[in-house]
């Protein structure tokens, strides 16, 4: 008695490893990625240029508006300064002569330029 092969023969023997495909040639990957990155950098620096020009546009818009805004602000500052002067004159009227001479003393030795008063008189917030 001897074992015989099954009817129809044995299944084929897998003698080769079942490896997945390795994809394209390496050089294709290399040049593909290089090309993609080149395009990306190109777009990026285009964007940098554009941002710079957009900033320039904004800045010139601001430069054109600056005199207008400054003029308005200057008028407000001048208004407050004149009003403060007026208030000081009111207070000065009710001073004694000694206080008045002290009040009239110049604060700065250098009289070559105009300075706005840094501090204004007022009531302490705790006493209001």
């Amino acid at each position, binding site marked *: 008695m001897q074992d015989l092969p099954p009817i129809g023969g044995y299944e084929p023997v897998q003698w080769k490893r079942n490896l997945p495909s390795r994809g394209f040639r390496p050089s294709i990957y290399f040049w593909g990625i290089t090309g993609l990155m080149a395009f990306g950098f190109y777009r990026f620096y285009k964007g940098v240029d554009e941002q710079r*020009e957009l900033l320039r546009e904004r800045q010139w818009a601001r430069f054109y*508006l600056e005199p207008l805004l400054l003029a308005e602000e200057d008028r407000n500052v001048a208004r407050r300064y004149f009003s403060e002067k007026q208030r000081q004159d009111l207070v000065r009227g009710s001073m004694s002569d000694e206080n008045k001479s002290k009040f009239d003393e110049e604060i700065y030795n250098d009289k070559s330029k105009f300075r706005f008063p840094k501090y204004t008189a007022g009531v302490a*917030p*705790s006493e209001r």
Partner: protein
Amino acid sequence: MVLGDLFTSRHQWENVDKNGLPDSVPEVDEVGATSAPLLSASYYIGAKCKPYNDDFMLCKDEKNGGTLDCLKEGRRVTRCAISALKDINKYCFDEFKLHYECLEQENHRMGHCRASESVLNKCLFQNLQFEKKIPGVEQQIHLNQNPIYQGTSNDKKKTAEFVKAKEAAS
């Protein structure tokens, strides 16, 4: 006195002064426009009011700040800006409104409002012979047909609607 009084920031300092300018200084209307219309009109104001603006800034430069000395030049600047805004309102109010409302919506980024800006610039060119020009460069960014940073499509949509409505009306 408690410790809290040392920290003045806790108190409400009211820095209000309601006195007007003295009578020796002539009255002038303020511009009264908010930031978006001003930004939209800035290039036109800059082109139209150049002599007054330059005069004012030079005056300030010469007079060491010149807050009190340059009030006259400042009034001229303000009057000129008002007249420029009046010009725009007279000829291109709808286009102007379209553009500054877009600027308001788009965080004041001019790059995101190109569609309405081109409509406004066209109107300004036809009526006031004004052409927007950014100084110092060849490449005018507002004429760039294919920009990278375009923002949303809201402006394009609204401008297309506006142009359509305008064509239907005329």
